[in-house]
């Protein structure tokens, strides 16, 4: 017998759409209040990213780091930890990629691959630290990971300024990366590069890891009930340590892909915030790997749209952050429509019961 999906199963989707709709209404209200040409501003916000290839390219290239950090957060949180060191890991990934590309001096693309691999390793180690401290010393990973982010920022800046600072530049920029150490553009007229392809491939690989391997199953089990995992013969400590390492690898690699795809030298002097965005992506994607590209597309589109709006009107870019917050708030508010869902479930259960009675 085929199971037809009951109506209550679609509520999740309705809820997402309703959340987006409500937040657009709020955005519109804000725009009405501060803009002289609200319709134009709203048009820019909603359709702006579609008006030229370059703009849409901005959306796509903005997705790349979001996908990597979104995946990182899903993996880091999987065994029930709140390890937030993906921010530091992403940053150290960029620092390590920059340093390695300049130090290794390998020929052509081999240098690129080696630098990215090194960045992934460094990123993995960064996220590993809170995991190990959690398992071995029962230190709260939230606290240690936030501290580690500071260490990463200042240690990373120290490394860049001490060893790779280009004196011909005025602020703390590094030397240019060697020729060939770059992720090539794939669409002319945009900055969309091979990093996006790498991100998509990574999504597929991680989907396999989470859904198709016993490791993914075990990580899930540890997150759902670590007592049960231990008693079933799954070593939860080991699983936690491995997941934190893998999560860190994703963030560090993402940092390298971002750096080599978008820049020709290291030029950050603060944490870029993509790690935090990863949390947003994970929430919007409901911690499901397959939704990560869509969540990244959504967030990136939102940002580019708001950016276009703020450049063409008198609406400040800060509004974007408000809009973003409103949307995430509504999407993560699971109580919306729960009353409707409850009523639907009651109705369906009754129908099912009645059918059972009748079938006897």
């Amino acid at each position: 017998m085929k199971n037809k999906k009951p109506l209550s199963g679609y509520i999740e989707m309705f809820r997402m759409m309703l959340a987006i709709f409500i937040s657009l209404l709020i955005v519109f209200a804000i725009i009405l209040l501060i803009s002289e040409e609200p319709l134009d501003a709203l048009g820019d916000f909603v359709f702006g990213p579609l008006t030229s290839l370059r703009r849409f390219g901005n959306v796509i290239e903005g997705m790349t780091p979001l996908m990597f950090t979104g995946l990182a957060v899903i993996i880091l949180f999987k065994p029930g930890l709140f390890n937030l060191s993906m921010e530091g890991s992403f940053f150290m990934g960029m620092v390590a990629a920059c340093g390695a590309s300049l130090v290794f001096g390998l020929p052509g693309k081999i240098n690129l691959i080696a630098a990215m691999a090194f960045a992934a390793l460094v990123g993995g180690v960064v996220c590993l630290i809170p995991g190990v401290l959690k398992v071995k010393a029962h230190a709260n990973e939230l606290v240690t990971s936030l501290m580690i982010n500071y260490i990463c920022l200042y240690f990373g800046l120290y490394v860049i300024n001490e060893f790779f600072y280009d004196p011909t530049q005025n602020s703390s920029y590094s030397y240019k990366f060697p020729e060939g150490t770059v992720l090539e553009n794939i669409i002319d007229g945009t900055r969309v590069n091979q990093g996006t392809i790498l991100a998509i491939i990574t999504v597929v690989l991680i989907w396999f890891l989470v859904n198709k391997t016993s490791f993914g199953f075990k990580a899930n089990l540890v997150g759902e009930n670590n007592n049960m995992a231990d008693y079933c013969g799954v070593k939860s400590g080991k699983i936690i340590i491995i997941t934190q390492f893998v999560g860190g690898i994703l963030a560090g690699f993402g940092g390298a892909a971002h750096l080599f795809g978008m820049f020709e030298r290291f030029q950050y002097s603060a944490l870029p915030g993509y790690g935090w965005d990863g949390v947003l992506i994970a929430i919007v994607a409901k911690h499901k790997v397959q939704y990560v590209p869509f969540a990244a597309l959504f967030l990136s589109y939102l940002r580019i749209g708001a950016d276009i709006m703020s450049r063409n009107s008198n609406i400040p870019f800060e509004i974007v952050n408000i809009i973003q917050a409103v949307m995430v708030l509504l999407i993560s508010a699971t109580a919306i429509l729960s009353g409707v869902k409850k009523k639907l479930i009651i109705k369906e259960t009754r129908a099912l019961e009645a059918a059972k009675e009748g079938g006897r």
Partner: protein
Amino acid sequence: MENEILRMEHITKVYPNGVMANKDVNLSVKEGEIHALMGENGAGKSTLMKILFGDEEATEGKVWYKGEELKVKNASDAIKKGIGMVHQHFMLVDSLRVYENVVLGMEPKKGIMTDSKEAIRLVQETADKYNLKVDPMAVVGDISVGQKQKVEILKVLLRGAKLLILDEPTAVLTPQETQELFEQLLMLKKNGHTIIFISHKIREVMQICDNLTVLRGGKTVGSMEVRNATEEGISHFMVGRDVVLRVNKKPAEFGDVLLNVKNLNYTNKEGRKLLDNVSFKIRKGQILGVAGVEGNGQNELAEAIFGFYPDATGSIMFEGNELLGKSIKMIRKNGLSYIPEDRIKTGAAGNLPIWANLIADTIDTNELKKNGLLDYKKIHERGKELIEDFAILCKNDEQLAGMLSGGNMQKVVVAREFSSDPKLLIANQPTRGIDVGANEFIWKKIVEQRDAGKGVMLVSADLNEIMELSDSILVMCDGHVAAYFEDASSVTEFELGNYMLGLKRQEDVE
């Protein structure tokens, strides 16, 4: 009806997960009676009482209490109206003293300070009035389960409850303690209190209740006066067919020694000695029952054998291999499996589907993989097979384990632990809080295991279960072996009780 104190009419409850726990349930309780609410687990008893106590909201239906419609939003509302509940799992603060627990949240005040003297006096007075013997100054963590229950009852009485709900109060008591509890309940009845006694132990209901109501599958099956009822009649009511909880066992045929535990000692982090030189053997084809008042080391013994405490000392030889110090994974590989005491905390993951719960221990074996990746076809086949073999009531194997009733969730755990075809099964409270049907089924499986020449170690607080199933019985008291009976039929429940309570102890138990 005359003297009716409580009437619940047409109660229907649908949980947000789509489970219909109560369907048009009716319950009528007379003032001053002890009314038994009976039924298998998952029959809707707990849901009905949660609605009465304000923990859950009824989807439909009305509750009448003392002639007025009762609308309670939460437990404190219910308490104000004079309804009190003694939960199956005690809601006490272990580190506080008895009197502190009893007055918690309603402390008598002197200025802004708690008036301890007055509190102690109040507790002592109530205790004396109802003949509930507890020491108000004792620390709750140190007193026995039976005593804790008295503290719970005191808590409820001191808050002015006239209607007391007791959720399976005898599940954790020895026969002696049960008798004492019954005397106290009769005393309460004499004082004009009304008691709803939730139980599925027919004999106990026959002993102290006046009327009974039976629920089955979320519906009221019927109500009757206890003096007109028979054991078989009630049993028939509860499961819809005649089940008398007895197992037919062939005489035991003991084989070689399977497990040999010698001088096992375990001291926990707080420095409490929980296992004190425990030695015993389990043979092939033997069910060894481990009896004892809860908290006397039985649970730790089971967990120690299964590798929960690598720092225990002594020796656990299994077919010539030392198990002590080995990981749980290795112990499972050696052919042991374990039904844990607490299915919610340890046995199952409520947020994972049934199939995931069923394969959690075998996920690393190649049977469930194809080219190194999980083979969902095989996994679901395995899931469906086990669901069928163990008669697990569910929509399909994708249903979340947490949505199942207690008995069915336990069957999931049992099915998983049997699926690896273990040489030795350690069953720790395998039928706690589950219905008669599931209980009977699990017993049957355990006996089958023994008849196949495998070993079983059965830890249970339910003496009836120990007596029915065991070939041999080990009694634990205070971490040591208080007695061992090679032939379980040579001992009575009452005698076991004496050893459990530490009144008697065999010398040189081997």
